[in-house]
């Protein structure tokens, strides 16, 4: 390629450095559109992204942005949400970010049902580090680190999230931007931890799972009459992969969120605007340390 690629420019005036044709573009546009459709004000939205091609999205979205370290989208986002539950906090991870180095946070975010949305750019490889295998790489898949084919079973994030009791579990596809926007809007409307795993073709490092490959297999759960309140059905659908691959909303249930249950955040203004100047400790010395006031 001796002709330099012309790279698009984001609304933030930053050159977008994804490869031409990368599945990340439609995640970006679907998300911005979803936010706008819902009439959310940009300053109310916080994007927290990890490290990877995926993570660059924080530089391209016209919202508050924190581009954190690899694998730590969830806890950082949780810190933001706790302090200011009025913000809409959305995490963006890669499959490596979310399911390899950062996987420990997922079951716990689910247990807490903190109202953070996690969008995973699942391209089945480590893109930014030049195409190593990821936890979602298929068995047998040839990648930079599996020259003779991957010998590990891929992780099934949808099944894992549903079985752990996540309150919102969906799968999107970069090749279906409209549907993706719909899923993002549903997630943004949902109160509680939401996982949206997006099948995102990496046109550079995964020559197998192309748009075409997915298009031949994908169908929408919404078209198949799937009822997202049915836990068992959802779990069954989660294991469907191969000739037919479902996308859409697998499961949704409204449960109290962490901020709603944690006493200190359950009522009153956001922690960030509560005054600290009036904090006293004298009362604690009296109550806890036997200080007698005369």
């Amino acid at each position, binding site marked *: 390629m001796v002709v330099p690629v012309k790279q698009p420019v984001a609304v*933030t005036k*930053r050159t977008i450095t994804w490869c031409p044709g990368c599945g990340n573009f439609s995640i970006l546009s679907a998300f911005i559109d979803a936010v706008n459709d819902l009439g959310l*004000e*940009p*300053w*109310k939205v*916080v994007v*927290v992204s990890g*490290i990877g091609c995926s993570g*660059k999205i*924080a*530089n391209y979205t*016209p*919202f*508050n*942005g*924190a*581009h*954190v*370290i690899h694998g*730590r989208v*969830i*806890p*950082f*986002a*949780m*810190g*933001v*949400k*706790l*302090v*200011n539950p*009025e*913000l809409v906090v959305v995490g963006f991870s890669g499959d490596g970010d979310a399911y390899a180095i950062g996987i*420990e*946070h997922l079951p*716990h975010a689910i247990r807490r049902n903190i109202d953070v949305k996690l969008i995973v750019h699942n391209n089945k490889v480590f893109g930014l580090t030049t195409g190593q295998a990821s936890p979602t790489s298929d068995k047998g898949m040839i990648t930079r680190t599996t020259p003779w084919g991957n010998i590990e079973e891929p992780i099934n994030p949808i099944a894992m999230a549903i079985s752990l009791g996540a309150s919102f579990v969906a799968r999107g596809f970069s090749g279906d931007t409209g549907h993706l926007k719909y899923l993002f809007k549903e997630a943004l409307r949902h109160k509680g931890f939401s996982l949206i795993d997006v099948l995102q073709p990496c046109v550079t490092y995964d020559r197998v799972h192309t748009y075409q490959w997915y298009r031949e297999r994908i169908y929408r759960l919404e078209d198949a009459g799937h009822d997202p309140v049915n836990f068992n059905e959802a779990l069954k659908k989660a294991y469907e992969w191969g000739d037919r691959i479902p996308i859409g909303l697998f499961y949704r249930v409204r449960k109290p969120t962490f901020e709603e249950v*944690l*006493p*200190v955040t359950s009522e*009153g203004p*956001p*922690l*960030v*605007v*509560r005054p*600290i*100047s009036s*904090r*006293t*400790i*004298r009362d*604690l*010395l009296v*109550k*806890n*340390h*036997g*200080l*007698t006031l005369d």
Partner: protein
Amino acid sequence: MERDVVQLLVGGSAGSGSIACGTILARALMEMGYYIVGDNEYPSIIRGGHTAYWVRASVKRINEVDEFNDLVVAMDHETFIRHSMEFRESTVFILDSKVVKPPNGVKVIDVPVLKLLREEGMELVVGNSIFSGAVAAAIGIPLDYVHKAIEAQFRGRKSVIEVNSRAAAIGYEYLAQVSIDYDLPRLKPPRPWGPRVLLTGNEAVALGMAKAGVKVYASYPMTPASTILHYLIGISKDKDMAVLQVENEIAAAQIVAGAAWAGVRAATGTSGGGFSLMVETLSMAGMMELPIVIVLAMRPGPSTGMATMSAQQDLLFAVFSGHGEFPRIVVAPIDQYDAYIKVIEAFNLAEKYRVPAIILEDKHLAEGHRSVPVLPEEVAIDRGAVVPYEEAVKLVRNGFEYKPYQVTKTGVSLHISPGVPGLVVRTESSEHDEGGFVTIAPHKASEMYLKRLRKIKYLRKEIEEKYKPLEVHGVKPSEADLLIFTWGSSLQAVVDAMEIVGGELSASVISISYLWPFPRRRFREALMGVKDAITISVEHNALGLLAKLIRMETGFRIAYHLGKVDGRPFRPSPLAEKIIKLAKAVRGVKHGSPR
């Protein structure tokens, strides 16, 4: 015979209530008006093993528990084995001879605790309070004070208070009516100290956080930091704090970073192993300029080491951990009162300079007791570069062009957190421009890197000029034959040891609490005109880490190191002996006749 100082030891197996018994006595003595230092030791075992609590009470200010115990409650046989070096002829033992067989020839007061319990139909678990009562009677603590202390110890739990108070009364009365042949250690009447509170270092740290206005404390339990978490959970509802136990230390640190970015004061606490897992986030806080505060409560390493013991082995780890170069604050309080103050100062400095801060405690401070003056309610809370929400709203409304990483003379940029109408803000773990967008442009990258590092100079200057980065005890360094350097809670034993060394050597003790950025100028000033003195660092480690740091930062070479790596804190008398021995070896100093 009445004395200035008395030291008690309560020994028993884990679960025996020996620590509670000791704490109740410490509390009662403090209430009477004595100066108190308390220390405890316990194994990483929930039931069984051996635990100990030492109380030293005095009419004068004292600093550390010492080697010898005047009165010992022995609830297990191990008390005689483990503490055999801590007894002298005059030591009196209180025990139930049905439970523990004392060695021959020691002074024993036999309290038939099992029998008394049985007679009263009380459970074994309150046996320790019978001992509390008995000790009170033996050394002259009015029963009232014991009752009050029991109330404070078990606050709120009415039936527990009741039964323990009854047990204490039984012990008190029993002892009051037996005749004792030997001198009991009794204290002179206390002097007026003004109101005091008995605190552990961790309680003081937690109170400092409450006062500083911490809104989020996220942590994963780890001895000896866990009690901060426990304490803060207890007060979380009253004090508007989100206090969370989370899945691991990485999550804890990241939540704190997220909360700090979102605009509040946030902290976490851990020990060395957990701190290791926070190091990546520490570096991120360096890059994002987030004033997160981490309490690193030290215990002996490497690795799991001795989980419930004390050490000062992590100084250089705290100072140099994290990839890339970035400013940070490392501060090590010297006692419980200081812990309260330093936590508040750390937040003020961290927010003023937008840098992470590490509070270095050792287990001995974290879990040891001291009677301290009532912690001040009036302290300066200065949020530094954090623009308050209302002000930010106004600024933005008036068209203020905000850049989160604005390059300034001091390197400090204003911080506005997300959520201000009309403004979006950014932070970035990659090298970034003033707006918080990724950059790899060489000039921009250098500029931003140096912007952050520029803070070091101003931070150091502020600490040197407006804070107390170091303290000198004893004679002026320029007049000293002996210069001792120390940090953290080890100072306490050193000060008492120097009292013991007394006239033999004219000594000066330099204790450094702001360890990073190192207060070079203040250190140099303090040492101005020093003679050819013997220089010793006294640290609870093997390699003399403060000495290394001092040499790195100032070139000053400390010739000797007195370390300790058995997990047990320094005690003044053995320390004094070692210092004298060393000084003699070096200079041939004779007892009573310094050169």
